[in-house]
């Protein structure tokens, strides 16, 4: 996708959001009508106005065809993103240590690391460090495995 087009979609969405937010303030109850609602309207007007100005500047600009590339290596980028979501999903059921024990080597491999000893040592080192520092010393409550 072209960068300037994505920017235009974002700005159009911003204008729509600011209109919706402005309109929604009518439903604020009681005292909020004279306080919070005025503040929210102020923000909505600022946001909408700035978005419209930026959109106009964007439209007036000569067409640029620079592509919108989130990353040079998309499989790695989206692979990491998917792995993060899976990590979050299984975080509470598997617990931090099992989930991270799978996540770290998988991502290291995904990003091109082939030295298995280095991967293993890093994983063990990090998990031990987290256990010693955060669980033993700082008493941070981390979820444990809850498979059954």
């Amino acid at each position, binding site marked *: 996708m072209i960068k300037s087009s994505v920017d235009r979609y974002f700005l159009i969405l911003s204008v729509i959001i600011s209109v919706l937010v402005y309109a929604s303030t009518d439903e604020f*109850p009681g005292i909020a009508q004279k*306080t919070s609602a005025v503040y929210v309207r102020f*923000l909505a007007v600022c946001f909408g106005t700035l978005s419209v100005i930026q959109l106009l500047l964007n439209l007036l600009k000569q067409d640029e065809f620079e592509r919108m590339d989130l990353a040079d290596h998309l499989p790695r*980028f989206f*692979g*990491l993103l998917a792995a993060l*979501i899976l990590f*979050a999903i299984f975080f509470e059921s598997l617990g931090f240590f099992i989930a991270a024990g799978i996540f770290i080597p998988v991502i290291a491999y995904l990003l091109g690391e082939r030295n298995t000893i280095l991967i293993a040592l890093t994983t063990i080192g*990090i998990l031990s460090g987290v256990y010693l520092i955060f669980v033993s010393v*700082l008493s941070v409550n981390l979820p444990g495995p809850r498979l059954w």
Partner: protein
Amino acid sequence: MYQFSASIYPVLGCGRQLMEYLEIVFTLPALVTIVIGAFAGVIIGGMPGLTATMAVGLLVPFTYTMDPTLGLMLLGGIYCGAMYGGSIPAILLNTPGTPAAVATALEGYPMSRKGEGGVALKTSVVASFCGGTFSTIILLLFAPILARQALNFGPAETFLLAIMGLAGIVSIADEKTSLLKALLTGVLGMMIAIIGTDDMSGSLRYTAGLIELIDGVDFMPALIGLFSMIQMLELAGQKKHVAIDTSALKGPQKRSKLPKGISKYIALGSGTGTVIGVLPGEGATIAAFISYNFSKQISKVKHLFGKGNPEGVAAAEAGNNGCVGGSLVPTITLGIPGNSVAAALMGAFIIHGMIPGPELFTVYADRTYPFILSLFVANITFLIIGLSVAPYLARIALIPPSIMVPVVCALAVLGSYALNQSVFDVYLMIAFAFFGLILKKLGYSLEALILGLILGPIAEGGFSQGMIIGKGSPWIFFESDIAKTMWLIIAILLLPPLYNYYKNHFGARSK
């Protein structure tokens, strides 16, 4: 009133209290914490891709279970250490560990290529130490005075203070992020901050029925997502990682005394960095570059700049470390973060129930002053590290991203979860990272977004209370002398950049 006056100047006015605070700093747990923080900061700062904001933001949730003073000391140590740490690979490998060390690399690396890496490293650490120490003295002297002024602030002035912070956002705008886009993302951050419970009526706003949003969008997951995870996503998405030139590491590096006349440039950088640090929104990178440019202007050997001039290294390093104390002045006195690292640190104060303002120097004086004093110890720690083992630490920059990325990601997930023990915060962090990256690619300022998110609740609280006091009339925001002065400052902050923006855009177009 007497009690307050006596207690707001404990350091200046009362030697006994100063000794008490020093005693807190010089206990074994505190010293160990500061040394660990500063050492970790140097290591993190030395790793390209990892920044002080990322490190402090990542660790804030973990300090929740720590003693508040020790937790703050740890983060302060990391902040100081990371600001210096970035210069080591910048000088020896031409790979700045942090963006703030880019200016250092311009002179430091050519020095290393000439075999003067030892001199560059020494200049860098001494300048960093001087800049950091000077700015901490300023913090110690002026923060209580500024905090006392904050006592005169009513809701209207509090609202204007937040607007002033927002006006500071315009100065964040650089070549990559346009001024309008910086303002737009600042307001977007304030819009995100209205999600949650309305303090005035107790009703829920824009929560989409999610109970996790009742307390609003916590800014810690946002901070971790915007400043840690984005960097990891970018690193992961790179096709090829730039090969680092290690030739300077292998060659002999001359160790000698500091170059003559360097103190002038250290003083220049220290002053510039501290002043720039105080301005909301201005970061260490800008401080380093402005100090570097100033040194170029006053130098007698201008022609040596770019070819390995220690004057440039001294000014840049004193500048970025000078930013540390400076950025904390508005942060802990007015609740307006000087930069993104200070914003993360402010999060640490808040999660420990220490709301920035005068109370930090009265009710929580026994935590705040030891924290400020600990910054001196952190500066001494990295000075010792820098003078003894800096060349060996440069190898940290050689850690491959394939190892660094999964480790930082795992810690980011852990950090996002730890504060509220909520997986929802982890999803929030990932969402902020993904959409933040899109905004970054489009040229929007993420620093402005996080500042807006932090300033939003302050602005809303002040605005709503001001409207109640003013019985619905907005004139309350223009009545007091302080309010008028603040409007003037806001105008001074906004008008010149807006004029420049207009001139650059429309002036160029008409030509």
